[in-house]
């Protein structure tokens, strides 16, 4: 019987074959899905996670494809739907759960909640809650890398709605004038909270805005992790070569409400239906199977392993103490412990 011949294994920039890289993609996408599933649909509903919960269900390919295209010395400015970037940089699920539960082992030790977290030593800049405010900050970080003669680049992430803010435009304009090594990654999930794209902007694509800044842009399938990976490689190469910022618009869909309290009644049901057929994780698995990069059993085993990892992480996070009220006044300024 003829066996489907796998595509020849190519070596990518990090010396892993397509099969290895696919497994990495799958691991981080499935880990993000599982962690966020628990946070949004269990811990939040159990009252163990308080406040706002924003997840990237259906958008996992974006942080994973771009995050793995980046070099370890590149800097990330994640948006609120890019949890996988934290895992790629070595933040653990336990730290993430502890963060969401306001515990001391969270990345901000209870100072801030949910994905409002960062760690400069891992090249992760904590999200700035005001949409698009991270763009000028990322521009400045990119200018600094150039100033220092480094060839690292900065990746900044945002949604379609954020592109309406002045900071987005100011930041990109400054970065393009300065030819700063900046990769702009837009998750165009077609909604900003309840506001659909056509109430957000009068042009068809976020990418249409790029020529106004003299900046290249491309539109990619936001549910195809390989396509995002390749686009991010091109973007990073452009920025690293000193040619300035580069925009990637990832067309995708937010497969949940804006946040955990939001049932998203304003989204037509058939849209969820349509996009559920295009789940980035299932699409990747199909490709892996088609190319014999992994077997069904291997894939199932990976999911099983992630579930266990996540169970354990939740258990550990729940054992993490709350911060003590005596810490309230500390570290507003330097030398306050």
């Amino acid at each position, binding site marked *: 019987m003829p066996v489907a011949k796998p595509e020849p294994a190519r070596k990518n920039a990090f010396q892993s074959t397509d099969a290895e890289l696919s497994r990495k993609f799958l691991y981080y996408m499935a880990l993000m899905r599982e962690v966020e599933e628990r946070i949004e649909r269990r811990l939040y509903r159990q009252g163990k996670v308080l406040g706002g919960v924003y997840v990237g269900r259906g958008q996992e390919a974006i942080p994973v494809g771009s995050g793995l295209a980046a070099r370890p010395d590149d*800097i990330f400015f994640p948006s609120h739907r890019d949890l996988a970037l934290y895992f790629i940089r070595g933040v653990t699920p336990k730290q993430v759960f502890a963060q969401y539960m306001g515990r001391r082992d969270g*990345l*901000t030790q209870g*100072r*801030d909640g949910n994905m*409002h*977290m*960062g*760690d*400069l030593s891992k090249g992760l*800049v*904590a999200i*700035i*809650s*005001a949409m698009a*405010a991270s*763009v*000028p*900050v*990322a*521009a*400045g*970080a*990119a*200018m*600094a*890398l150039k*100033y*220092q003669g480094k060839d690292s680049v*900065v990746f900044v992430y945002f949604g379609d709605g954020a592109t309406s803010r*002045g*900071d987005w435009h*100011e*930041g990109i*304009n*400054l970065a393009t*004038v*300065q030819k700063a090594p900046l990769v702009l990654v837009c998750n165009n999930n077609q909604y900003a909270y309840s506001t659909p794209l056509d109430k957000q902007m009068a042009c068809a694509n976020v990418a249409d805005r790029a020529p106004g800044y003299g900046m290249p842009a491309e539109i990619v399938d936001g549910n195809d992790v390989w396509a995002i990976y390749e686009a991010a490689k091109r973007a990073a190469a452009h920025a690293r070569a000193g040619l300035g910022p580069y925009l990637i618009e990832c067309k995708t869909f937010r497969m949940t409400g804006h946040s955990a309290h939001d049932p998203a009644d304003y989204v037509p049901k058939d849209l969820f239906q349509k996009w559920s057929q295009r789940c980035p994780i299932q699409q990747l698995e199909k490709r892996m199977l088609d190319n014999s990069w992994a077997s069904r059993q291997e894939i199932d085993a990976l999911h099983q392993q992630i579930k266990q990892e996540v169970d354990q992480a939740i258990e550990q996070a729940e054992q993490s103490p709350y911060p003590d009220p005596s810490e309230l006044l500390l*570290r*507003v*300024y*330097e030398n306050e412990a």
Partner: protein
Amino acid sequence: MLTSYVEAIREGILEEMERDPNVFLLGEDIGVYGGAFKVTAGALERFGARRVIDTPISESAIVGAAIGASFMGLRPVAEMQFADFISCAFDQIVNFAAKCRYRWNAPVPIVVRAPCGGGIHGGPFHSQQNEAWFAHTPGLKVVLPATARDAKGLIKAAIRDNDPVIFFEHKALYRKIKEEIPPGDYTVPIGKAAIHRVGRDLTIVTYSAMVHVAAQVAEIVAREGISLEIVDLRTLVPFDEATVLESVRKTSKVIVLHEATMTGGFGGEIVARITEKAFEYLDGPVLRVTAPDTPVPYSPPLEAAFLPDADKLLAKVRWLAAY
């Protein structure tokens, strides 16, 4: 040799750039033109376009980029062309820069320079003293030098500080104040008030250009036998409460003087601290002399009526001294 307030700031900045290759400048028209007030004149010629960056008109991006560059280990000094336009960068300053250390232990060692104040017929958009907006935001340091000596020492301290500093330079002082300053490298500590004039009978707590109004009044009332002590705060945050209270305990009478408008001004905070912590030492009400609660008007008679001056202070000093 006498050094003006503007020269003092310039000297401080250039010396810091010389000392630390991580220090760089960014802002509108600061390079080729040397800045709207020429504070950075000569910097571009000396340090080149890499370290003296003329930016687009984008206050939010200027401050945002400064924050981002500071994360990478640089020490940016950002210029706002006028303190009034700092409102365009407000979010970056109060919601991001101020909170990074507290939220996620990320220091933001930036300086935002803001030419402030009236008396130059700048009208409502080029004359404000808006320091109180920032004093109300924990995480920021707020500095307002009144003298050339302090201007140089404080800008150098601000550049070396590991927290975000909003540095208010009074436009009317740039070329009006000239004095002997110590040669070469020195800093003035942030968070320390100065006794600008030692006195016995009544304390004026003030800062920025109003220090000079207080000094004028002190000369006048000295001839009437009233001895004024002037506390120049120099820094609002951190607030040097100890120095203020010490002076109050000595004189038992206080007037708080600032150019900013009254309601919600920093003066209210000073008065509250004094009444909370030195009430039993007071021999009279704690008074305020400030601008009234209006925008800063343009026309000379209106602006003169708006700004606190020697006559307005004098009346209150005489009243309180006789109390």
